[in-house]
């Protein structure tokens, strides 16, 4: 990242103490808590995660390689005013995504009006012609969105990627908070942090709100998982558990008379709403991949008949495709009538000859991504790449330009992070979760912060050595160090004293 200091979200542009004035309390906490104590707490948190089995499987390794994602004890913090502006942008973007999906699988006005090239949508592998013409119950298609953001300054947020299929990571938002409440209770006395634990309730409300008409007052909701060998299985079970609904596998469901039923010890029970964590491809072997053993034959017919709601709706992938992403500012403006409040990262579509030329001329400064890649694979980070890697990508770009986009390397913000050398700045990104029901769009005050644990690294993916942090959203703009009158927080305060005094003794 050169000599220029990236914006540090706690320390500010200087990158060193003192902290930003509104976050002085956090700065003091960092200064006063010895590294050894931070490390002890971090290990305690990771130990808990291991016992709970909050692990992900590393594909291609042996059974023993169930790993936890590293957890960092230093939280990242949003001030209330920062969060409020951010939320407005998120709501606007997700409203546009829902309108776009309804349009694309319906009238396709946006194509008729020439805002998007039709072949980019209709010829896209993420576009599902099988779904065209089916209206999802209550007209909502992207019920759960995870919008990946990066930050370069106090109010400079950019959308890096939209996730409108089955965004994962929300269990980390909740479990990381649990760990922080237990291990750093004193922080919650100093800072008024908005609670995130209402997420499962909101998700269940969202599910019930989109139940097909005629499901009755208490619709039967389930979470559909590919099974416990899936790397995100913990999250599937965690969500079903926190909502108090059944976690089903494809084989537990059966479609009869265009209705979905689950097999129970008492016989068949009707299902109204399915939060699926299975990709479209595997959802229904009669419509998509015929070799899928994970899905439910006939599910799409039941969906087309309006007898079941599927979250997120099949075909949503077209909205988070990287090629479509570059048009999001136009899409937002087209459906909401206003400029996008959250800008994209500037994106060069290599399918366009002029853009391709620019990209080829400036490869060492750019990040190049596969349009359909994920997990940090198939990616060139110009400034840190070897000349060999750059030349490899140059050849690939010339051969198949339409498969790539490129973006400038941003001076991604950092957050102090516990490393082997003590607390030092590490780059982060952010995934807030946005829920859309029949009654509107809601953002939960928190999200998943991913951190690149290697010094200088910009790659935050867990498969590439990234970790996570808790993400605090403050209920004020800091500075005021009032104690919360909330009973629960006071009880935490009681716990603080013993830990706090141990810490104070050494500080």
């Amino acid at each position: 990242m050169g000599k220029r200091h990236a914006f540090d979200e706690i320390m500010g542009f200087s990158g060193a103490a003192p902290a930003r004035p509104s976050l002085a309390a956090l700065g003091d906490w960092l200064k006063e808590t010895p590294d050894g104590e931070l490390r002890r707490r971090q290990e305690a948190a990771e130990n808990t995660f291991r016992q709970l089995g909050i692990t992900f499987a590393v594909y291609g390794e042996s059974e023993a390689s169930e790993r936890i994602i590293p957890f960092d004890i230093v939280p990242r913090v949003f001030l209330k005013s920062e969060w409020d502006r951010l939320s407005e942008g998120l709501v606007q973007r997700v409203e546009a995504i829902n309108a776009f999906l309804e349009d694309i699988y319906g009238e396709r006005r946006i194509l008729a009006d020439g805002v998007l090239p039709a072949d980019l949508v209709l010829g896209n592998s993420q576009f599902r012609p099988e779904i065209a013409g089916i209206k999802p119950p209550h007209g909502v298609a992207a019920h759960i969105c995870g919008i990946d953001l990066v930050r370069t300054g106090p109010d400079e947020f950019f959308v890096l990627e939209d996730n409108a299929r089955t965004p994962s990571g929300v269990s980390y938002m909740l479990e990381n908070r649990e760990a922080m409440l237990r291990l750093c209770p004193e922080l919650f006395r100093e800072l008024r942090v908005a609670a995130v634990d209402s997420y499962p309730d909101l998700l269940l409300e969202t599910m019930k709100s989109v139940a097909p008409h005629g499901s009755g007052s208490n619709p039967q909701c389930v979470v559909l998982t590919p099974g416990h060998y899936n790397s995100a299985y913990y999250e599937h079970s965690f969500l079903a558990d926190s909502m108090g609904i059944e976690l089903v596998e494809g084989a537990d469901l059966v479609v009869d008379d265009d209705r979905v039923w689950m097999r129970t010890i008492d016989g068949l029970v009707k299902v109204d709403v399915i939060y699926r964590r299975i990709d479209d491809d595997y959802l229904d072997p009669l419509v998509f991949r015929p070799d899928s053993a994970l899905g439910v034959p006939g599910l799409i017919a039941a969906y087309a008949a309006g007898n079941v709601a599927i979250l997120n709706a099949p075909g949503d992938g077209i909205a988070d495709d990287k090629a479509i992403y570059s048009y999001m500012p136009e899409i937002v403006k087209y459906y909401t009538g206003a400029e996008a409040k959250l800008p994209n990262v500037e994106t060069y579509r290599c399918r366009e000859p002029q853009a391709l030329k620019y990209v080829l001329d400036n490869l060492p400064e750019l990040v190049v991504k596969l349009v359909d890649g994920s997990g940090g694979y198939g990616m060139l980070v110009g400034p840190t790449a070897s000349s060999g890697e750059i030349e490899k990508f140059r050849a690939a770009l010339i051969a198949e330009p339409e498969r790539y986009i490129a973006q400038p390397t941003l001076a991604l913000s950092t957050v102090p992070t516990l490393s082997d050398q003590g607390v030092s700045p590490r780059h982060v990104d952010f995934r807030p979760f946005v829920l859309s029901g029949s009654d509107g769009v809601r953002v939960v005050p928190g999200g998943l912060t991913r951190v690149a644990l290697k010094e200088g690294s910009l790659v935050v993916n867990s498969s590439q050595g990234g970790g996570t942090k808790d993400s605090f959203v403050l209920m004020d703009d800091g500075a005021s160090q009032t104690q919360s009158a909330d009973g629960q927080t006071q009880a935490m305060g009681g716990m603080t004293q013993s830990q706090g005094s141990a810490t104070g003794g050494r500080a």
Partner: protein
Amino acid sequence: MMLLSRTASSLYWLGRYIERADFIARLVEATVRLDVLSSRPAGEAAWSSALTVTETEEDFLKSGAAMTQNQTVKFLTLDTSHPGSIVRCLSMARDNARAVRTALSRDAWTAINRAWLIFENRSGVGGTAATLNMVEAVKTETRGFEGAVHRMLRNQATWFVRLGQAIERADNTARLLDVKYHILLPEGERVGGVLDRDQWTTILQTVSAVTAYRWLYSDGLRSANVIDLLVTRKEMPRSLGASVEEVVDILGHLAKQTGSHGEADRMARMRAARAGRTRSTEIIASGLHQYLQSFIDENAQLHGAIGRQFRFG
């Protein structure tokens, strides 16, 4: 309240595997004592009988390992290629538990996961002290699981775990008695002799019944009493009588919640009625081995009926 058939099946198997892991841990512990700590070391015979109880002697011989404490304990505890080892039982239990996490409480899950983690990256069993520590650690976690299951909501999920445990427990106790009584005693050894006494103590230790025995029988260690305790005494949790009755009770709870009875209910009630009329003296007179063999068969039939009644598939 309803329950997926797949979930019910996994919960039941989870109960069986945890119980089995616990049983093997107890068996190893008792055999170590028999071999090393008793007044006269039993050596190879002790370990050979431990393998017979778990019906794995043949597999062990095929592995080519020597019948020493170290090798046998390793086979029964750590050997991932042996389906009857503790680590494999715990791994199966954990797999089933993972598949039904939503039906388990956090405490119940972490107990299973912690038990499984005991064996992570463990390649050897170490000496006697290390072995005893290891099985003690397993027992601690299975006890924790047992406690957590009893603190869970009294819903169908809980009853299926406990049903699996009760069926497995009946099977384990029957096997333990059968093997110890007929196979273990070396030829020429006097019934009631020193080694014989040690063997019976081993049985009582395996089922945690040493103290219970002393409470119930005042006339010293006698094989007829041990058989009475483990076959008919319902106040002894691991006796056949208690397990048989527990299965009836659990199926009764399930019937109350699902509102229907079936084949398994009838079979379990008939078995309990018969067990209620059984006297241990008659069993010994007419042949303990035959009695235990038919008990094990019947238990397996009940297992099949449970699967059919609840559509385990």
